[in-house]
């Protein structure tokens, strides 16, 4: 299991490859990988967004993410999973979160990856404050259900 909090911009593809290299024993054993990446957009709720600050609760973040991944491993036959989350000042088009799940079969990879994302959205202690084009700062009040 990999849990990583990044204070600088990260490359999601490089993070996955780094993790795979560190988990060489997995080679040939998994048939399915599902990766979700959440990326900062340059607009939200009709407003132009110039940047974002992601605050978190160090320690609790890691504790909750480990718990969430452990739950996914209990619910589905997950071979391994990686979660990377950005904190600090973020610019549009930069990745915010990466979830990667390796399983034998595709259904489990999709299900477990989605479970981790939904649980992360509702339980991992991160908070976003947007800096709008108008220079106004705005805390996000709550996460959406994942659709519009």
């Amino acid at each position, binding site marked *: 299991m990999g849990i990583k909090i990044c204070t600088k911009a990260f490359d999601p593809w490089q993070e996955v490859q780094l993790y795979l290299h560190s988990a060489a024993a997995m080679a040939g054993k998994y048939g399915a990988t599902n990766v979700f990446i*959440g990326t900062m957009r340059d607009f939200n709720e009709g407003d132009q967004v110039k940047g974002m600050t*992601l*605050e*978190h*609760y160090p*320690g*609790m973040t890691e*504790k*909750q993410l480990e718990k969430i991944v452990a739950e996914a491993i209990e619910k589905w036959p997950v071979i391994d999973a990686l979660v990377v*989350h950005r904190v600090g000042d973020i610019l549009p088009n930069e990745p*915010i*979160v990466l979830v990667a799940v390796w399983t034998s079969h595709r259904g489990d990879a999709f299900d477990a990856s989605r479970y981790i*994302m939904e649980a*992360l*959205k*509702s*339980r*991992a*202690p*991160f*908070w*976003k*404050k947007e800096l709008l084009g108008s220079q106004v700062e705005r*805390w*996000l*009040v*709550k*996460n959406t259900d994942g659709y519009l």
Partner: protein
Amino acid sequence: MSIKVRYFASLKEAIGRSEDNLELAGLVTVSDVWRSANPDKTLPENSLAAVNMDYVELTGIVMDGDEVAFFPPVTGG
């Protein structure tokens, strides 16, 4: 007993502090911790609370040395 209290995000900004260190006595709940630290402020509806980095109800009991945290709904991911 000694309790460390932490605040995050918009709640931290509203209070103007990021933490408090309280000395309390007797049977103390998470709610009591909030009231002792913020006698003039109601905890905003929808706020979440954690003790030692696990989510708890406001009726949960607090022990000596615990770290209690209050924060708004999370918006990560």
